[in-house]
């Protein structure tokens, strides 16, 4: 049996062949930490200049890695942080936190026909709402910033922690949507000069209803904003297409992160189906916070049952004059044995549930790695590297 293309068996091999790694998946599964771990391992073991671009890291982790908003530029994780973890890295680890508002403003500056138009857009209240608050704008701006960083060529590898979106898919579709936005008929309807609107019989009812709902003043504000915004369209659309191409070409790969719970698994599964369908490279799957495999080994459940069912009897024997636990209160020991037995069954139920959800995620896939439930939150470089070693090779 031969395969057309050899699938890398480890994240190490996968990452070594790429310039962009996009870490994505449902919310709350540990994407940020996995992204940091991949970047840190690459910097330590493969060398070169590695950047992790993230959106909303936990504060302690951000502090530990020296993450600060893009405005301040990328920051290098100091060698002292590696020294504390007992490591001398081959390469450099850099971090940057996405600053949505700042990135939007720069985009406007770059694509506006002139300085005055740029300023009018920046001052428009609707623009401020788009750039500052919008979730969808996060998606677009993250890929946009990635494109910019990549084309500057300062880094050997960029690892992106994708923003929390309602659907992981939104991130992928963002450039496409941006292009659609500018070519839509609705944008044209809205940006028709106000006086000539009622001349066209076909669109008259449209304006009539729109006026009644939103009020003509607001409609005019919107129109003005869209007219200004349209001046950016050429630059935006071609940029969106380039971004799309970059994400789809062989320099980029996607790593999906999920926990083995039903809702995240469903979302991750959808995403894994969509990636190849859209022409993106699905490189790996990281299953985070998975219970240890020994919980599933056959033969243990009967032992657990014996422990909890015979707890009183066993405790009595353990605590006799000649028993190994003489001097200990048998009532306490009984309770302990009971709890140990019941707990094993409880965790066994969860482990089996996880195993069955895991089989739902199987498919034509490169690397699958699991990360055990860690004893501590990952809040420093040492923790990041410990996680990294679990997933790396």
């Amino acid at each position, binding site marked *: 049996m031969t395969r057309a293309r050899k699938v890398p068996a480890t994240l190490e091999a996968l990452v070594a062949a790429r310039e962009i790694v996009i870490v994505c998946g449902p919310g709350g599964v540990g994407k940020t930490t996995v992204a940091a771990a991949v970047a840190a391992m690459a910097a330590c073991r493969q060398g070169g200049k590695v950047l992790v671009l993230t959106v909303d890291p*936990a504060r302690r982790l951000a502090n530990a890695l020296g993450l600060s908003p893009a405005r301040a530029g990328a920051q290098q994780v100091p060698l002292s942080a590696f020294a504390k973890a007992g490591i001398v890295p081959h390469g450099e680890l850099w971090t940057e936190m996405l600053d949505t508002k700042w990135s939007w403003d720069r985009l406007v500056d770059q694509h506006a026909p002139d300085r005055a138009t740029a300023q009018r857009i920046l001052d428009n209240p609707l623009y401020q709402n788009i750039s500052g608050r919008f979730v969808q704008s996060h998606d677009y701006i993250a890929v946009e910033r990635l494109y910019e960083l990549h084309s500057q060529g300062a880094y050997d590898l960029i690892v992106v922690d994708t923003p929390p979106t309602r659907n992981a898919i939104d991130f992928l579709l963002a450039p496409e949507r941006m292009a659609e936005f500018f070519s839509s008929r609705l944008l044209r309807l809205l940006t028709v000069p106000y006086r000539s609107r009622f001349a066209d019989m076909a669109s008259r009812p449209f304006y009539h209803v729109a006026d009644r709902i939103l009020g003509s003043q607001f409609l005019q504000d*919107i129109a003005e904003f869209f007219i200004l915004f349209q001046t950016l369209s050429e630059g935006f659309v071609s940029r969106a297409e380039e971004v799309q191409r970059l994400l789809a070409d062989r320099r980029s790969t996607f790593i999906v992160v999920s926990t083995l719970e039903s809702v*995240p698994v469903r979302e991750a599964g959808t995403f894994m189906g969509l990636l190849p369908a859209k022409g993106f490279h699905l490189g790996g799957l990281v299953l985070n916070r998975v219970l240890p495999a020994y919980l599933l080994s056959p033969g243990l459940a009967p032992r657990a049952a014996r422990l909890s069912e015979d707890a009183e009897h066993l405790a009595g024997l353990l605590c006799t004059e000649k028993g190994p636990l003489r001097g200990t209160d048998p009532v306490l020991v009984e309770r302990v044995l009971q709890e*140990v037995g019941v707990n094993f069954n409880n965790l066994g*139920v969860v482990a089996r549930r996880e195993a069955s959800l895991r089989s739902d995620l199987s498919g034509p896939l490169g690397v699958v790695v699991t990360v055990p439930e860690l004893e501590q939150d990952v809040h420093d470089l040492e923790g990041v590297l410990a996680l990294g070693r679990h997933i790396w090779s």
Partner: protein
Amino acid sequence: MVELLDRKLLFVTGKGGVGKTTVSAALSLLAASKGKRTLVCELDAKGDLAASFEAGPTSFDAREVAPHLWAMSMDTEASLRQYLSLQLKLPKAAHIGPVAKMFDFVASAAPGVREIVTVGRLCWEVRERHYDLVVVDAVASGHIVGQLAAPQAINRLVQVGLIRQQTGWMLDILSDPRTSGVLVVATPEEMPVTETIELIGRLKAETTVSLAGVIVNRVLPELFGTREGRAFEAVCGEPAREFLTEKIGGRPEPLLDAARLMVKMRRSRAAHLERLRESVSAGAPGGAAVPLLYVPYLFLRSYGLRSTRQIAAALAAELES
């Protein structure tokens, strides 16, 4: 203090993945079991709410899924359509199509426009007294403030028109602490707790909706008290292990490891739980105490109506204590 379920409109939010849909389902099931006519509405149509009741898919038309309990999923376009036909005597329904599209388009630039129609629809159910309680499986904590502050945003941006006219009565409903409230769901982990604490501050600063409570979901059991902890260490000693190996038909180590794993998992979450408890109690000096309810982790084979019922029972016990 207003009892949680005596309010008319509850928005359930929380960081993604903490179980806010399950909690919304359980809470509404509990209210319905107490005889309250309850509507539960899923705002982003992912279909998870329907799975919690195992009663078929939900749609924009509310459907009775259990006695006294109706479930629906929000649909912006359908909501707008309904709203237009109620408020405007539109000549032809056919014109709504392009309007709905335009609306979607405008809504992507102007905050609050979409929310005024969706949140407005739920406020309308409250105003018309169709139900005793409306439970909203709302958006995640990152977006809930924008959703609840929609009327204020609209007031700033829109001077006239039908949309503007909606904000007054909506604000009346949303701002009344006896009528409306936000429930934040968290799990005892770093990011969910941090987001919950930040959200509590933002709700106060940027919206008029009061905090009705915080629900801590998936709290792991405490296996041992201090004395049992010492007895456990004794059981882990070699003599006891050898003894048990003979009696239970094999080595006990994996069982003991599993117990230790649970103890560690619980301990790693304890600090976050404490942080949450402190900030929730500090958030209400002089004011009414905000209830903090605990829902245990469920060791179940799968999630569905059975787990929804168990969470409802856990919430009932918490509300009575």
